[in-house]
C-alpha cells in the first residue's frame, strides 16, 4: 500500500519520538504504508530536520529529552502553516492532547495503535480529515458547559465554537459515528470532518494575539 501526494511524490513525515522501540514501530507502520519518514529523537534533532526540509506531516511526542513537544508544534505551525501536525500520545489523555491542540496540532495518534490504524489516521489527516476522539470531544464540550469556577486541566477557550459545532462534539463524545451525527443534525456526512477541522482551528490559542504581543515586545507596534 502506498500513498502519494498530488505531485506523485511520496508524502514526507517527520516523526519525533525519543523512545526507540516506539519510534521503530511507528516508522515501520508508516513506511509500510508508503510514506517517506524521517525520525528525530530530540527537539534539537527535530529542528535540524525541519530546517533541512519541510515535511507534509509532523508527528511528535510531547515529552522529549531536551524540551517539550508543544514548542515544536508551535514553531512548526508558525513557520510551516501547511504542515499537518499530530501529537503521539501513550494514553490519549486530555492534558497532553488539548495542550497540543491549543498550539496547532489537529488530533493525536496512540502509541500502541495498530499499524493499519496508524496509516489510516495519517492518510485521513493528509486528506484534510482531522481525527477526534470521544474523550477529547467530551473534554471540549464539558468546557463549553462549565461556567462558574475555572475547571481543572489545561486552559481552553471554547467561546468561538458555534452551537452546531458543539452539537457535533456532543455526538462524537457519545460515540455516534459521523454518519449518525450528520443524520441527527440534518447535515451531509461529508461536511462533518470539515466542521471538526474548524473546531481545531478555533481552539488554537490565537497566533494573532501572540503576534501582536510579540510585535509590541519588539517595538514594531505602539499601543
Amino acid at each position, binding site marked *: 500500500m502506498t500513498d502519494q501526494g498530488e505531485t506523485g511524490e511520496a508524502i514526507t513525515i517527520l516523526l519525533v519520538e525519543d523512545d526507540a522501540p516506539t519510534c521503530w514501530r511507528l516508522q515501520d507502520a508508516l513506511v509500510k504504508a508508503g510514506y517517506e519518514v524521517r525520525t528525530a529523537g530530540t527537539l534539537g534533532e527535530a529542528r535540524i530536520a525541519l530546517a533541512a526540509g519541510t515535511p507534509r506531516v509532523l508527528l511528535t511526542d510531547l515529552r522529549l529529552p531536551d524540551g517539550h513537544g508543544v514548542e515544536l508544534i508551535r514553531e512548526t505551525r508558525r513557520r510551516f502553516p501547511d504542515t499537518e501536525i499530530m501529537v503521539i500520545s501513550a494514553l490519549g489523555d486530555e492534558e497532553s492532547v488539548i495542550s497540543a491542540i491549543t498550539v496547532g496540532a489537529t488530533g493525536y495518534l496512540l502509541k500502541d495503535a495498530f499499524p493499519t490504524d496508524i496509516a489510516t489516521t495519517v492518510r485521513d489527516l493528509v486528506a484534510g480529515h482531522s481525527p477526534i476522539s470521544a474523550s477529547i470531544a467530551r473534554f471540549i464540550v464539558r468546557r463549553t458547559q462549565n461556567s462558574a469556577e475555572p475547571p481543572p486541566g489545561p486552559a481552553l477557550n471554547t467561546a468561538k465554537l458555534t452551537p452546531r459545532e458543539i452539537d457535533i462534539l456532543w455526538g462524537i*463524545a*457519545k460515540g455516534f459515528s459521523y454518519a449518525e451525527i450528520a443524520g441527527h443534525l440534518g447535515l451531509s456526512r461529508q461536511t462533518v470532518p470539515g466542521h471538526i477541522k474548524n473546531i481545531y482551528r478555533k481552539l488554537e490559542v490565537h497566533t494573532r494575539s501572540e503576534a501582536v504581543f510579540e510585535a509590541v515586545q519588539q517595538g514594531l507596534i505602539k499601543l
Partner: protein
Amino acid sequence: MSEIAAKAEIIRPRLWLARIVPYLLLQVLIVFAVLLGLDLLEPRDPDNFAVSEFSLREAGITRPVTLPQFTASRYSLADPPLYSGQFEFKADGAGTTWSVFLPRFSNGVEVAINGVTILDSRRDPTANRPDRNTPEIAMIPASLLREGGNDISVRLFVWGPLRGFLDTVYVGPDAALRAAYETRKLLFVTLPVVFSAWQSILAVILAIMWLMRRHEPVYGVLAAAMVLGVVQAFLTPPVPPAASSRLATVLLSSAPIESALIVASAVLFLGWRWPRYGVLLFVPGIIVIAGGLIAGPPLPRILFMLLGIPTVGFCLVLMAGIAAYAVFRRQDVVSIALGSAATIVLTCWAHDMLSVFEIMPNERTFVSRLSYSALLIAIGAGLTWRFARALNQVDSFAGQLVARVREAEDRLKASFAREEARARAAALANERTRLMRDLHDGLGGQLISIVALSERGQEGTSITDAARAALKDLRLVIDSMDDIGGDLMLALGSWRERAAMQLRPHDIALHWHVTTPQGLPLHPELRPWHVIQIVRILDEAVTNAVKHAAARHVTVTIETRNDGEGPYGVISVADDGSGFALGDDGEAAGASQTARGLRNMRSRARRCGAILELCTGETGTRVRLQLPQVFPDSDATVS
C-alpha cells in the same frame, strides 16, 4: 431631698457632692438670669405722657390717688371705682391723632374722655385674663378733644379674689404710645398664643405617641396635661356678669391638675414608678373643679387662688426636686434641661406670688404662664432627644445584628470549610481505595500475566494481548475518573473507540445502535466506580466474542425503556459466534476462564444494581445489561 441626700451619702458622699453641687450652682445662676431677664424685659412706657394724678371715687368717698394703685378686692361690678383725671391737649395743626394707653389693669376698664366712653376692655377676651397682662390702647376721636384741659375717667371693674389694680395711664399722640403698646402686646398676648400653638402641637404628637405605644403611659399623661393647657389658653374667660358654662369655668381653673399631670409624667418619663400616694397631688385640683361644678362663680376663682396656685407652686418644687434627683442619678442632658426649666418656672411663680401679695414693688406683671413655655420647650426637647436616642439604639442594634450575623456566618463558613475538607479527605481516601482496587483488578493482573508469559519465554500474541489489555484497562481507569456529569453515553463513546480498536485486527465488525438520540437516561448519582463496572462488563462481553466465540459481528444496542415506573437504560452486546455451554446453574461450564469471566460480570452488575442476563446458543451470545433507575450510592453490596 434629705432622704435622697442621706442615701447618697451612704453610697459615696464625694460623688454626690461632685454631682449635685455643679447642678445647684447652675440653678442659682438660672435664678439670677431669670430675675435679670425679667428686669431687662420689663417694657418701658413713654413717661412724658403719663397721667398719674387722679381722684378716686370709691364707695361714695372721693380721694386723690397717684397711679399705679391697688384697690380692694370686690365681687360685684356695680358701682366700680371711678378714677377721674385731667390732661392737657394742644393741637399741633397737623391733625395728630391722640390715644389713651393703659399698660396694665385688672380686671377690666372703661375709659371715657370728656364724658364719652371710648374703650371697654371687657369686650376683649384676652384682656379679661388677669394672668395675661394685656395692655389696651384706644384712639381718641378728634372731635372729643378740647384745646387745653380735658377730662379722663376710668372705671375699674374688679372681680375677686384678686385686688384691683390700675397702672399709670398714658395719654398722648398715638405715634408716641403705639410702640410701647405693641411691645407689651407682643410679649403678653402674641407670645402666649405662639406657645399655646406649640403646646397644641405637642399635645397632638404626644397623643399619637400614646396611641401607638399604649404601654408607655407617660405620653398619655403628658398629652392630657398639654390638652388642658391648650384648653385654658383658648377658652374665652367669662366676664361677669355674663354667665358662662360651669364646665368652661372649671376647665379654666384646671392648672393645678395640669401641673400634677406634668409631675406625674416627669416621674414616668424618668422611668420611675408613680407612687400610690401620688394621687394626693391631684386632690387640690379636683377640689377646685368639684367646687366649681357645684357652685357658680366666684367660688372657682377663690378656690383657685387658695388651692390651685399653691398646688402649682408645690408641683414646681416637686419637679425641681425630681429633676435634681434625676441629675444626681443619671447626669444626662434631659434631666438637666427639665430641672433648669422647672427652676425658671419656679422663679417666675415666686415672682408672681410676691407680686400678688404686694411684697415686692411691682407693676403686677404676671410671668408664670409665660415662663411655663420654658418647661414646654424642655419637654419637647426631651422627647426629641429620647426619640433620637431610640433611633440611634435601633441603628446600633441593627449594626450589632449585622455584626453578629457576620460572625455567625464566619463561624459557619469555617465549620463548613472544615466539614468540606473532611469530606474531601474522605472522598480522596475512597477514591484512592477504588483506584487501588481497579488497578488491582485489571492492570495489576495483566502486568503480572505479562511477567509470567515473558518468564516462560512465550513469544508473540499472548504477551501482546496481555499488554494491550493492560493499556486498555489503564485508559479505562483514567477515563472513568473524568467527570461525565451523569451521562453514561459519554463513557460509552470512549468505550466504543477502544472496542472498535480491539475488534479491528480480528476482522470483527462493531455495530452500534442507539435507539434514541439521547441514548440513556441521565443519572446524576452516577459515580466513576459504576462506570468502571459497567464498562468492564461490556469489555468482558466483547473479549468473550473475540476469544471464544469466533464471531464476525458484534452489535451493541443502547436503548431507554420505560415500564411506567420511570426510564431505565438497557445495553446489550450480541455476537454471531458459536456460543458456549452453560451449566444448569446458569454458570458457564467447563472452561474455567470463561466461567470466571461470567462470574465477574454478574458480580459487577450486582454491585451497580444492574441486572445481567446472558443467553448463548448456536447462533451467538447475547449479554443484556439492564441498568437500575437509580444507581446505588455505596459499594456495600460487595460480597
